[in-house]
């Protein structure tokens, strides 16, 4: 007689009729396949943990976002925010879809160049651009977004040295009614800093001020903040034209759209509380169309959307290492992935699904990573079916920021694969090895040897 499938016995107290802190029952479906590829086979071939990127989801999400804007506004350009996920294969899917590149360091800038992005389609943001970075960007006719006065003055000097006219924009920060206000980047709108910078650039006449940029924050839960930002930038552009007869050719509203993830401590699931692409597009496009632009040509609208375009396309497949019972009676499950590679556990209550069948019984508990560190908590409170050592799980919507902010801490970074449109699997980043890490270390000769008694 064939034996029955075993599941750990559990008993669980029922809190009738109440939604508890463990959230709603969204994780109660096994996810055995990603884009038609078996999770067990992926782990069998590429190891655990494993990041899996769905090319199909990237393209679909990108097209949904783009369409929401182009349906409402005639001139829209996306620029892929490299820091959100700069694995080259991921960047190139976005570039194939038509995205420019948005970078914030020389490292990212060169990555974009090497991926084949033409220099004049690279937007260079951020407070940290070295002289060499600036020269390179001027040379490639990139769009340099000036962040502070020190940079503006340095750029004026370099411009004289190289005798070229760079194309620049200024980053503007402003009050959009959202707290906290991001005023550490760029020039402030309300206090007149922005005008100050604009006057300097135009009167100095060594560069072309072609655009205005802002990035008002990240995971913005109100679309209306963008309407305010768009109106303020459009207003600036209008008055620059009125005062200097100079045309601002684009308005770049940065990134910051919320993904469908659930923020930690939030009582609402992210897929309920996050505005849709249509909500953001409606706010932004109406504001631009309502601005005093009728007399001029409408500016190009640039978006540097990051997390909302890539979060859903990324999954992390992992394995249960152990179960234990905490002193307060809660079940603790230890996974083979921790905050070292799933940095976003600090922000999100990541949705987690078992990758094999289970009965509908569940237990409340906590999910830990494998690091020997107290901070290594993946989910503080979660309801999951009983899982045993060796079972697999899929963590959903991890595509943004994890594959760039991951740490080589205690363990090494795992393989990353991409599943293409035909469900074929491609290795796009090799897992790190001890050799790879040791390669960049140096041992002073006198430390090479030791004896232990």
């Amino acid at each position, binding site marked *: 007689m064939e*034996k*029955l*499938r*075993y*599941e*750990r*016995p*559990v*008993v*669980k*107290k*029922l809190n*009738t009729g109440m939604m508890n802190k463990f959230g709603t029952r969204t994780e109660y479906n096994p996810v055995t396949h990603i884009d038609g590829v078996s999770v067990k086979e992926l782990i069998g071939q590429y190891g655990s943990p494993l990041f899996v990127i769905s090319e199909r989801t990237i393209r679909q999400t990108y097209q949904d976002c783009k369409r929401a804007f182009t349906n409402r506004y005639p001139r829209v350009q996306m620029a892929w925010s490299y820091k959100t996920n700069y694995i080259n294969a991921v960047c190139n899917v976005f570039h194939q879809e038509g995205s420019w590149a948005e970078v914030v360091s020389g490292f990212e800038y060169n990555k974009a160049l090497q991926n084949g992005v033409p220099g004049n389609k690279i937007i260079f943001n951020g407070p940290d651009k070295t002289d060499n970075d600036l020269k390179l960007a001027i040379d490639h006719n990139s769009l340099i977004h000036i962040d502070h006065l020190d940079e503006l003055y340095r750029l004026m000097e370099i411009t004289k040295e190289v005798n070229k006219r760079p194309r620049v924009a200024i980053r503007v920060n402003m009050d959009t009614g959202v707290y906290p206000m991001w005023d550490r980047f760029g020039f402030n709108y309300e206090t007149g800093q922005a005008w100050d910078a604009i006057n300097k650039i135009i009167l100095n006449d060594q560069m072309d001020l072609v655009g205005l940029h802002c990035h008002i924050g990240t995971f913005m839960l109100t679309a209306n903040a963008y309407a305010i930002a768009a109106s303020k930038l459009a207003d600036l552009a209008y008055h620059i034209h009125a005062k200097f007869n100079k045309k601002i050719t684009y308005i770049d509203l940065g990134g910051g759209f919320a993904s469908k993830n659930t923020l930690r401590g939030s009582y609402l699931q992210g897929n309920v509380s996050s505005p849709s692409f249509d909500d953001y597009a409606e706010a932004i496009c109406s504001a631009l169309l309502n601005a005093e632009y009728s007399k001029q040509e409408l500016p190009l609208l640039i978006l540097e959307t990051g997390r909302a375009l890539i979060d859903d396309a990324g999954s992390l497949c992992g394995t249960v290492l152990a*179960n234990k*019972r905490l002193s307060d*009676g809660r079940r603790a499950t230890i996974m083979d992935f921790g905050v070292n590679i799933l940095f976003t556990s600090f922000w999100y209550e990541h949705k987690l699904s078992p990758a094999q069948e289970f*009965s509908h*019984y569940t237990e409340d508990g906590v999910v830990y990573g494998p690091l020997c560190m107290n901070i290594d908590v993946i989910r503080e409170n979660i309801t999951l079916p*009983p899982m*045993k050592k060796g079972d697999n799980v899929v963590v959903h919507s991890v595509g943004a920021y994890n594959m760039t902010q991951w740490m080589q801490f205690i363990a090494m970074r795992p393989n990353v694969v991409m599943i293409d449109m035909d469900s074929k699997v491609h290795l796009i980043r090799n897992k790190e090895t001890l050799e790879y890490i040791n390669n960049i270390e140096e041992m002073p000769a006198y430390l090479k040897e030791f004896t232990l008694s």
Partner: protein
Amino acid sequence: MKIKKNIAISESGFIFNPTTGDSFSTNPIGFEIIHLLKEDKNKEEIKQTILSRYAVDESTFEKDFYDFSTLLQNSQIAEE
């Protein structure tokens, strides 16, 4: 370990403790074990029954049974 006398267990795996007013649910294997406990089976007998019926090795089950017993006692469903 014994299941407390006043505990009510329904066929669907629903458990009610009239003393505390708490209700619980359990999965099919948990249900089976609670029934075996009600029939005064000891740990060894329960283990043999489960091992003969389910695809599980002895050490895994022992670990899980120990954990389950603690849960039953913490929930005041069972007592020593």
